[in-house]
């Protein structure tokens, strides 16, 4: 159970850098406008950021593309857990048949 001092300092520095990004939105939050175009932009963050996170996965292969469409269709009818089950099983079957691009 040893901890190297240089490694510990690096971990603390990474933790500090990560915390800075996570607290900054709470610090600036109260100063952001409640109406208007800036608010429209902020309200779009959940959809915009989540789309960006998954975009490379969606186009990473035919199985992933098909499974993404299947997940969207399933999500309109099922709770999140059901949509995830549909997506994961579709990607497994798809990878078996298609491989990569």
């Amino acid at each position: 159970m040893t901890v190297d001092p240089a490694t510990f300092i690096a971990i603390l520095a990474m933790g500090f850098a990560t915390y800075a990004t996570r607290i900054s939105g709470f610090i600036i939050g109260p100063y952001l406008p409640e109406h208007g175009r800036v608010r429209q932009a902020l309200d779009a963050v959940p959809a915009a950021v989540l789309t960006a996170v998954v975009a490379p996965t969606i186009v990473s292969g035919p199985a992933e593309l098909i499974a993404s469409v299947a997940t969207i269709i399933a999500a309109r009818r099922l709770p999140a857990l059901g949509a995830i089950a549909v997506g994961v099983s579709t990607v497994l079957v798809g990878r078996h048949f298609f491989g990569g691009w």
Partner: protein
Amino acid sequence: MSISSVARDARSGFINMMPIALAVVPFGLLLGSEAVRKGLTPAEIGLMSMIVFAGSAQFLTVSIWTHPAPWAAFALAAFLINLRHVLMSASLSPKLKTFRSSQRALVAFLLADEIWALSEKRAASHPLTPGFYFGTAIGFYLIWLAATVAGTFLGEVLPAPETIGFDFVFAALFISLITGFAKSWRTIPIIIASLFASLLYQSLYGGTGFILAGGLAGMVAAALLPPEKKSAL
């Protein structure tokens, strides 16, 4: 707020989070086994999961870890990868009105992607309460910590997440959340702008900046939309 309603919210947050926390276990195991290969001890990777608690930053730095650790370079890498959290916390900020400032400080510490996404989903239909948030976040935190440390002992014997489709769990969760957020036509241009900008950025520059590029493009698209007519109260 009564004790029982806090407990009820914490319980529903915890239950909500469980499938995602289970999906994160193979990745925690993978990170732990990679950490051992890079000369980190179980105590060190455990401390990293406790103090940093950011999967993508941990994966990146562990994969390039050297001894002695270049702390400034790793801190900069963690900062750049996690810049998306500035947008996430700014978006979550107005939904934390019932949280004390000490609670908000802890919310920020635990604001991993999955926890943020589940909280935004909750906030879209219910007021977000401290009970729900911490019920979601603390369970996820402990499972991530346990999985990364366990990976240092048994990571080698486990199958890679791709072979059992576990890598797609997060994509499927996020896609189903996006589908839930898309309540009107106004979301469509936001999604399209984010999709194209992130893919363009990734093909041009690689790295992890594509999340920020897509997020900002979606925000610009939203700002350019005609003002939403709010129904009169």
